[in-house]
């Protein structure tokens, strides 16, 4: 079946019941999204589907035909990090880093819709994503910084 990932069409040879996460990591070598709980409860696997933050571990690819999927790799790269990535680096928001890709994707979904999101909105939006290292305050600072960057540079669109 066909999937559109990071703006590119892909022919996927997999059981249509396969969770998106396995296709991203196993077939497309897009390894930013992580396997955490596998139950849609921790957020490490978060990607964007038509701009909405989605748990890729519980989303079968058969539900995704014709929808636009964006992973962290679709936002920016090592050489050209996206604002959300620059902000997370600047705030050193990662401890072990396992949750961070999911955190960035959920924050991206929020800021794409509302670059002026306040602290309460950021906290509420990120609630589905867990971090076990306890870097929550740095993550919040990073999202606020990204919001400022997106407001000033209007660089919020994924590339």
């Amino acid at each position, binding site marked *: 079946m066909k999937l559109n990932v990071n703006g590119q069409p892909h022919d996927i040879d997999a059981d249509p019941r396969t969770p998106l996460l396995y296709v991203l990591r196993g077939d497309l070598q897009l390894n930013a999204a992580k396997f955490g709980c596998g139950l849609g409860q921790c957020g490490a696997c978060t990607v964007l589907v038509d701009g909405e933050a989605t748990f890729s571990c*519980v989303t079968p690819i058969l539900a995704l035909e014709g929808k636009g999927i964006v992973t962290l790799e679709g936002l920016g790269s090592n050489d050209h990090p996206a604002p959300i990535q620059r902000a997370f680096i600047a705030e050193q928001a990662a401890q072990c880093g396992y949750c961070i890709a999911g955190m960035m994707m959920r924050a991206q979904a929020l800021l794409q819709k509302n670059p002026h999101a306040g602290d309460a909105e950021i906290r509420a939006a990120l609630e589905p994503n867990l971090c076990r290292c306890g870097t929550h305050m740095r993550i919040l600072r990073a999202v606020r910084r990204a919001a400022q960057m997106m407001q000033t540079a209007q660089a919020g669109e994924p590339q």
Partner: protein
Amino acid sequence: MRALRYFFGVCLALALVVAIFVFVARRPAIAPIEPPAANSFAAAQVRRGAELAAIGDCDVCHTAAGSQTFAGGRAVPTPFGTIFSTNITPDRDTGIGRWSEAAFRRALREGVRRDGQYLYPAFPYDHFTLVSDDDDRALYAFLMTQPPVRATAPSNQLPFPLNIRLLLFGWNSLFLREGPDRANAGQGDPLKRGAYLTEGLGHCGACHTPRNFLGAEQTSKKFTGGEAEGWTAYALDGSSPAAVPWTAEALQHYLQHGFDAAHGVARGPMAEVAQDLRTANADDVRAIARYVAAQHGGAGAPAPATGQQVSAQAQRGKATAPNSADSQAEVLTEKPATNGATNEEGARLYTAACAGCHEGPRAAPYGGIDLALSSGITGPSARNLVNVVLYGLRAAEAARSPIMPGFAASLNDRQIVALAAYLRARFANKPAWSDIEKTVREARRAERAASTRPAPSEEAIPPPTQRTSSNETEDEKQ
């Protein structure tokens, strides 16, 4: 000249009618008092009041998300407009600090504020009017000993003429029947006690009885099911959609934990009710459960079908999946659609997105309940099912509770409609729902608040046991 006289005549008559109405409808203010000192109430009375306030779910409506308990300000959507709950902390200026016990009792029984203004029946005084003198006194003692919070609720958003409170005199004349049953609060007879609590303070009918066009409960259709804040409140009488008839024991467990393995999980406003009933007096909750079970026509009678039987029936031909450490318990075979369902897309979505948990080998909370037992699927409307599919079940803090991810972002309306239709056809022995598209649109439009209600924080689920026997385990615990 004659026309002018006629005009003045009509005006005079109208003015007279209005004057008489105002004269008849007006209620006097009750003199304010100095807020009573907390130590002027007996500790036992305050404790009793706390238990009763839990039965009455006072904090559910009188607390806004994220703010202090009983300080009001929560928006209560009604078909007529939005009503904001009031501050019932004993704050002198913005709460009920200057209300005497008589003023408090009048509010509960007649729906009139201390200053003589009418309250809207979003406040269920049509039920609270049945509460006994003693219980009113205990509730008063409890509320007046809470920390005062200075908070003024936003103004109600009601169109003219509904914003004229005096008109509620008419509503009260039509629909308010002041309590005849409050004499002994049903003490000594569990069924009478249950009736007293259910019909009065518990105000179960406020959601579970349908309302007429004036927003009053249709007494001829008592407990036949209603609606509350975007959720279906199931019938509590013989027309209950439960696949396994409720017993008093199952109901008690459900009321106290927000979950019963043979029926499913309390969501929406019912989750908050269960949260409160956890702290209520257990004998009182048992009495309510007995009375409500009796409305089903099955007080203590052996249930015609158990959860196991219904489950087994629904699972015939089901493939057993190997226990896997993997996230997605593979469901090995496509299940044949039953009840004539030929909904290919729904079947595919179910197998791919739902069956892994709902038919997998994991025990709750990591495995879902057997959908053949879910009232969300056997119920009269798809709304509750759609709410849960869209927004999921949030985890309770520091306790085992049912969990489920929401699919609002990954499934579009067409897919949710197909899935809901498939689940109905496959798991409920009931006619198909009509216009699921509309239900999905409404659920999407509704406040996401629907999803963010607290889950019961008490452990709702027994420690992992064999999943098919979990229902019996619940029953034995009682």
